[in-house]
């Protein structure tokens, strides 16, 4: 399985370099299990990412940026990525059967079933709720010479706790909690807990309640003040 992991990483960096070359890296955020890999790789935390799946989730924080359009489909195809349309209308990009790149955006308002067209980057994206937790709290880290934007680890944790109850299929709830526990375990001596307090205070009451409920359900001790509902 090590060979698979190595070729996945190669494909990942090919994608990152291709995005860097067309100045697209400033307009995307890497989320999902590959964000955990970036935390590990950039020494953000003394952390070993538990699990990387094939899908690389790319969040587009603002569908109107960049103003000067970039055709990411062309960029990826030039790099040897093969596009495929899934039954739900989303277009994913595979590289050598090793990774699957998928774009996401913030779902706002009523939301819609069909994917969103991101004209600024020429891609179709899936809309998901609560993504502002990730887009509003990001860090730029340097990995292998590239500046890559990821959510702050604290935002990543809190987002996972907010969405946990709605995660389907259900095994994803446990998978996310496993990742959260791994990140929380390395929080000692870092700014993670302080970051968590300040981000938590920006969340809606509904989101805060969801965090508290998820922590109770899965026996996670984030921060005593936070869990007592004292951080507002």
């Amino acid at each position, binding site marked *: *399985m090590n060979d*698979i992991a190595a*070729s996945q990483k190669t494909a990942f960096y090919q994608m990152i370099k291709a995005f860097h070359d067309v100045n697209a890296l400033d307009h995307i955020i890497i989320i999902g299990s590959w964000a955990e890999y970036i935390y590990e790789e950039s020494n953000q935390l003394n952390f070993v990412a538990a*699990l990387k*799946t*094939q*899908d690389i989730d790319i969040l587009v924080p603002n569908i109107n940026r960049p103003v000067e359009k970039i055709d990411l489909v062309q960029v990826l195809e030039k790099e*040897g990525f*093969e596009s*495929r349309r*899934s039954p739900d209308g989303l277009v994913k990009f*595979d*590289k*050598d*059967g*090793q990774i*699957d790149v998928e774009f996401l955006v913030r779902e706002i308002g009523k939301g819609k079933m069909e994917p969103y067209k991101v004209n600024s980057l020429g891609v179709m994206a899936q809309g998901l709720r609560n993504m502002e937790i990730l887009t509003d709290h990001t860090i730029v880290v340097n990995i292998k010479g590239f500046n890559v934007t990821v959510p702050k680890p604290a935002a990543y944790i809190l987002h996972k706790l907010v969405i946990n109850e709605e995660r389907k*299929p*259900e*095994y*994803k*709830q*446990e*998978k996310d909690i*496993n990742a959260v526990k791994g990140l929380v375990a390395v929080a000692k001596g870092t700014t993670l807990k302080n970051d968590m307090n300040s981000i938590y205070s920006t969340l809606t009451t509904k989101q805060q309640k969801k965090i508290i409920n998820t922590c109770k359900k899965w026996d996670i001790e984030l921060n005593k003040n936070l869990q007592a509902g004292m951080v507002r």
Partner: protein
Amino acid sequence: MAFIYGVLKEEYDRMLEKKNDYEKKLNDLPKGALVKKQINGRSYNYLIFRENKKVITKYIKKENFDTVQEQLERRKKIKKSLKSINDDLKIIKKVVKK
């Protein structure tokens, strides 16, 4: 750690989806190799491929040469990806089909 099974099942389904997509794409792409033949001092391009144990030589117009060459390269790349997917499927199948 019961979620591991779910993760593997999802990866398995994803790979199957990719496999089906690639197999469809392969059907639409030409197979074989491009060769040049000299006839009466002139150079002509042909696509040689095997179909039902028969070797077929198909003339390729000059203006279509680049497209066919690109399609053959794409076919080669897709076959490589398909091999990688099939190898991974074999490994994951052992777990998810238990």
